[in-house]
C-alpha cells in the first residue's frame, strides 16, 4: 500500500484496523508495521483516544419505550378517523394531556378557573374602594344628596358674589 493511500485512509477512519474498510485492511496492516505507518497511526491514535472520552448516550428510558410500544394503537385509532388531528398528535407527544382532558379533570379545572375569576373581581373591587380619596367621597355624597348639593351651590354662589363686589 502506498504511503498516501494509507495516510488518507487513517485520516478518515482513525487508527483502529477494525474501522478500516474491509477491502483495504490487509494491505493497510502491512504498511502499518513500517516506521512511516507507525508514525501516521500515532498521530491518529491521539484523536481516537479523545473520541473515546465522549460519553455514550444513556439507554432509552422505560417510559419512552412504553410510549413507542403504544404507538400502533394510537396510529390505528387516528387512521380509522382519517387524518390525525392536531389534538391527536399532541396526545402522542404528551400522554399526560389525556389526564388533563378527562371529564373529571376538566370540571375541576373549570371550577378552579371560576373561583379564581370571582376572587379576582372581588379583590379588584376591594382595592378600588380602598383607593378612594376624601374628595371622591365628597363628590359621591354631593351626587347622592340633593340637599347637600344645593347647599354647596349656595356657598359657591355667595363666594362668587363676594369676589365680584370686591
Amino acid at each position: 500500500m502506498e504511503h498516501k493511500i494509507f495516510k488518507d485512509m487513517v485520516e478518515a477512519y482513525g487508527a483502529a484496523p477494525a474501522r478500516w474498510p474491509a477491502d483495504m485492511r490487509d494491505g493497510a496492516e502491512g504498511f502499518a508495521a513500517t516506521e512511516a505507518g507507525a508514525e501516521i497511526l500515532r498521530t491518529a491514535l491521539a484523536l481516537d483516544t479523545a473520541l473515546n472520552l465522549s460519553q455514550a448516550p444513556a439507554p432509552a428510558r422505560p417510559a419512552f419505550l412504553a410510549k413507542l410500544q403504544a404507538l400502533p394503537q394510537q396510529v390505528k385509532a387516528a387512521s380509522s378517523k382519517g387524518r390525525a388531528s392536531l389534538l391527536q398528535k399532541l396526545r402522542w407527544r404528551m400522554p399526560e394531556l389525556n389526564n388533563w382532558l378527562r371529564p373529571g379533570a376538566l370540571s375541576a379545572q373549570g371550577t378552579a378557573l371560576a373561583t379564581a375569576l370571582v376572587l379576582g373581581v372581588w379583590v379588584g373591587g376591594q382595592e378600588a374602594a380602598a383607593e378612594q380619596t376624601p374628595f371622591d367621597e365628597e363628590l359621591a355624597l354631593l351626587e347622592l344628596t340633593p340637599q347637600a348639593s344645593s347647599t354647596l351651590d349656595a356657598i359657591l354662589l355667595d363666594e362668587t358674589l363676594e369676589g365680584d363686589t370686591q
Partner: protein
Amino acid sequence: MAALVSGDQTAYAALITRHADRFLSVATRLMGNQASAEDMVQDAFIKLLTRADKFNAEAGRFTTWFYRVVSNRCLDELRRKRPVALPEGYDKEDETAQTDASLIERDKKEAVEGALNTLPERQKLAITLCYFEELSNKEAAEVMDINIKALESLLTRGRQSMKNQLATQKSALL
C-alpha cells in the same frame, strides 16, 4: 419487516426492544439532548407505522434504512431550529465537592463533546455512524445517501476540525 407491514404487533414490539436504543443513541448525538432525540425517534416510528410499505427489503437492511429516516428527521429539525444561547454559567455545577482528578476528566470530556458539537451536521453524522455506531463505510454511506468517497471526505474534514479544536484546548488532549 414483512410482518410489520402486515400489522403484526409482536414484530413491532420486537423491533422496539432490539433497535430503539441504537436509533435513540444516534439521535441524541445529533440533537445534543435526549428529550429532543426522543421526539425525533418517536416521529420516525410514526412514519414507520404509517409508511412501512415504503421500505424495500431488497434494497438494503432495515436498520440502514431506519438510521436514514431518524437522521434525516434530526437534520431537518436542526435546520429548522435556530440555536438559543443560554445565559452565561447556566450549566455550571458546584465544583467544590469534586476532586481535581474528576474535574480534569470532566474538562476533557467537555472539550471533546464541545468539539463534536461544533462540527457541521453532516460531518458529525458521519463520525457518529462510523465511529460511535460502528457502521461499515458502505452502510454509513448508504444511510447518508452519498458515495464512499464523499463519506471519507466528511470523516477526514470532521476529524481534522476536531483535532485543530482540541489542540487549542488547555487540557492538551492531543
